């Protein structure tokens, strides 16, 4: 089976770690890269940048709204600011600033939200960001990216920096399996087909990509030919890949560590209805979670390979 041999899904580092490391390399290559932090540098991993480039690192205190607008000013004056905090705070507290000082005038700010989703675990719902993609995708002109592993995160940090315009980059707290070879090429707005299949397509971002690959193995064993597509760019969406999946497999399951009321699922549904309407199922959170272990929470709130497989079976059944 292709899925088994191709993806051994060895555990890698958290995407926030890949972000922090790549940021340091970017800092060495481009002196215009600056970083703003809101008292979470050791959690968002921008502390490595702070150590090497203290003169280009600005701690804003616990004041996310102010930080975002400072980023807007820095960008308007020619810098490439990365403003980082927990996703739950930077997007919510900074939203109006993102709207009026960043999105509306189309200013080149890179917003990084770490600790996304419910897999942060024990800290509980106040720190879990499950609305961030709804918010970020609501902002016209924003590019919204949620990488699946350390390899894609490293690439997208660079792509975000060289992209001219506002970007939201979503990172996770927990370690995630490595999906990609180091030489994989990425582009903003391009989905990546990881496994081809003809009965159903699993589309996902973030840690749900690895779960989808595992789900595909389960489904293949049952005789359901499963396509798996990683959609790291949620906006602009790769509508071509969506239309192709709809046309060729007739059923799409979207899996994401986010509220099903927003995020990738609704974007794909919108694209599908405009191109080739097909059966769809949605795997994600439907309400605020609670404290617990990351694994326990993903299980309880239905974001595992088993949940993806179950949704795929439902979708395939509905096709007939």
């Amino acid at each position: 089976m292709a899925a088994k041999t191709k993806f051994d899904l060895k555990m890698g580092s958290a995407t926030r770690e890949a972000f922090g490391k790549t940021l340091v390399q970017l800092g060495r290559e481009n002196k215009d890269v600056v970083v703003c932090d809101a008292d979470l540098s050791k959690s968002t991993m921008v502390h490595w940048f702070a150590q090497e480039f203290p003169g280009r690192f600005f701690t804003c205190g616990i004041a996310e709204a102010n930080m975002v607008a400072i980023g807007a000013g820095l960008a308007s004056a020619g810098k490439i600011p990365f403003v980082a905090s927990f996703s739950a705070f930077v997007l919510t507290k900074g939203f109006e600033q993102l709207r009026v000082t960043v999105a509306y005038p189309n200013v080149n700010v890179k917003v990084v939200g770490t600790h996304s989703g419910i897999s942060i675990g024990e800290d509980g719902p106040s720190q879990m960001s499950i609305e961030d993609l709804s918010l970020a995708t609501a902002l016209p002109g924003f590019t919204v990216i949620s990488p699946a592993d350390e390899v894609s995160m490293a690439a997208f940090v660079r792509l975000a920096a060289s992209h001219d315009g506002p970007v939201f980059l979503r990172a996770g707290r927990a370690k995630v399996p490595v999906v990609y070879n180091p030489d994989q090429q990425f582009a903003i707005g391009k989905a990546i087909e990881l496994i081809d299949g003809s009965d159903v397509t699993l589309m996902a971002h973030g840690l749900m990509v690895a779960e989808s690959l595992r789900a595909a193995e389960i489904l293949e064993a049952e005789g359901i030919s499963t396509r798996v597509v990683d959609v790291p760019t949620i906006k602009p969406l790769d509508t071509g890949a969506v239309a192709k999946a709809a046309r060729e497999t007739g059923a799409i399951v979207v899996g994401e560590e986010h509220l099903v009321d927003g995020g990738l699922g609704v974007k794909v549904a919108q694209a599908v209805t405009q191109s080739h309407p097909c059966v769809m199922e949605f795997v994600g959170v439907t309400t605020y979670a609670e404290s617990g272990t990351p694994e326990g929470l993903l299980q309880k709130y239905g974001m595992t390979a088993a949940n993806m497989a179950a949704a795929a079976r439902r979708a395939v059944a509905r096709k007939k």
Partner: protein
Amino acid sequence: MQTRDISELQDFCKKIRRHIIEMITEAKSGHPGGSLSAVETLAVLYLEVMRHDSKNPQWKERDRFILGKGHACPVLYATMAECGYTPVDQLKTLRKMGSIYQGHPDRRFIPALEASTGSLGQGLSVAIGMGLAARMDGNPSRTYVMLGDGEIQEGQIWEAAMFASFHKLDNIVAIVDYNKIQLDGFVKDIMELEPLADKWRSFGWHVVDADGHDLLALRRAFAEAEATKGKPTVLLAHTIKGKGVSFMENNPKFHGMAPTKDECEKALKELA
């Protein structure tokens, strides 16, 4: 205010500190530093200052307490449990799935909590709303809200501060747990707050400076707050982050790190 023997309060504080250490050790994550710094303040509030009844948590005229710096919930959970609100024997389920003792205060699990907090900067505004409602209803209820010194870097705090004095709200008391440390290090290195008393004064507040580990000083401070009419009072409680455990005191490392089993034993020995 019903005063108690100081030795009784001291014993209570020691018991709370032991709970904090044991709860966080068992959970393997959590925030010991800012919990330990707030122990005396909560003890004086819950045992002496506040009018409340754990048998009747929804009593309309109760005084209310909001922990703005929600990450320090172990001190609140332990204090409320020892006051009879919630089971003491479940304290060690902190942060586990299904526990009422969630990682941050969560009213879905403990309805006696006055607010679900965890995102810093919002507790003061909520307290003001409660104070306004009490005044409208002629309700003697007073509202106390504890803020972190890092937390008050949030702009919303100062919007709220302006509002409270403008509306002459004298039934709310803000307490700044002024332990001089936030998450990434010392407040003075991240975003200095001084001159802090002057800031609050210029926002129209009555300011009381006190040693936040001195039970008598805290008792006096809250009495002064209650006697202050026509403006809100802020208590700048000068504290030590990690207070009571030598290797945690003034140590930024223990903002958000659980003690190991060994460290737990050492800490409990110091708190014997």
